């Protein structure tokens, strides 16, 4: 279940009902999508990285934000309907004579496993990492594609 953060109006900031409404609207859409979607996996998992999964007629697309991750440090494995993303985010040292004011970025390894709703052609899976955004394209297996069946008159 989605938990909506309550944001009290802070003094000094004008309360903007329109942006609040927009935010609420987006939140409602998300909750609605979560409730109506029969997929078990539509709750965000507490595992890095967050994933977006979409589909069109021919492919599934899995996207993840991986800023600062060298594409060489990402390993993608498939098994049946599962997709496994392994990797490590490295942050190089910046010399000894620097003093840090803020340090919010973390360097660590990650592992995320997700299931696609149907079979994909594991031999044709392609992955591109551009500007820290990973896109994995998984062509649907012939059996998973929607097919229109003609009804012939008897």
């Amino acid at each position, binding site marked *: 279940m989605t938990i909506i953060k309550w944001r009290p109006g802070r003094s000094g900031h004008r309360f903007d009902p329109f942006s609040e409404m927009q935010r609420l609207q987006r939140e409602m859409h998300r909750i609605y999508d979560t409730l109506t979607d029969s997929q078990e996996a539509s709750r*965000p998992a507490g595992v890095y990285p967050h994933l977006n999964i979409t589909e069109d007629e021919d492919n599934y697309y899995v996207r993840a934000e991986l800023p600062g991750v060298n594409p060489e440090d990402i390993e993608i494995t498939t098994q049946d309907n599962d997709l496994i993303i392994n990797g490590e985010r490295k942050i190089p040292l910046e010399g000894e004579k620097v003093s840090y004011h803020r340090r919010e970025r973390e360097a660590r390894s990650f592992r995320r496993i997700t299931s696609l709703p149907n079979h994909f052609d594991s031999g044709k899976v392609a992955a591109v990492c551009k500007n*820290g955004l990973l896109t994995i394209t998984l062509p649907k297996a012939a059996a998973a594609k929607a097919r229109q069946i003609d009804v012939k008159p008897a």
Partner: protein
Amino acid sequence: MSDKELQVRDKRELEGEGERTKPGPVFVPAVDIFESEAEITLLADMPGVASENVSIDLHENQLTVSGEVGLLTSDKEEYLLQEFETGTFHRQFTLSDRIDQNAITATVKDGVLRLVLPKAQKAKPRKIEVRAG
């Protein structure tokens, strides 16, 4: 899960702060800021932002960094799972040192902005000669 693994964190959404001309969510990028004798360096996580979509503005001591992420999906795609949203990254800082504005450099690699802000040369002490009139 071992504590060595990267913890997932929700993207921080920007609150308050004026009205924007573009609709859509605005996120606060995670940053590292460190300082050496000669310069201040800022690293900001902005996944999906291409170098041409980054804008950096330094006005007086106010540094503003923002980046736009375009639409990721095509019209034909339908969402099965959405755990993150994309939009604009935006963050503002107040700098305490004087910066040499002409020597600022910015690069983007793998969705991380690296901004190097060289400190301005401090006014050197000057000896003023008093000449006899």
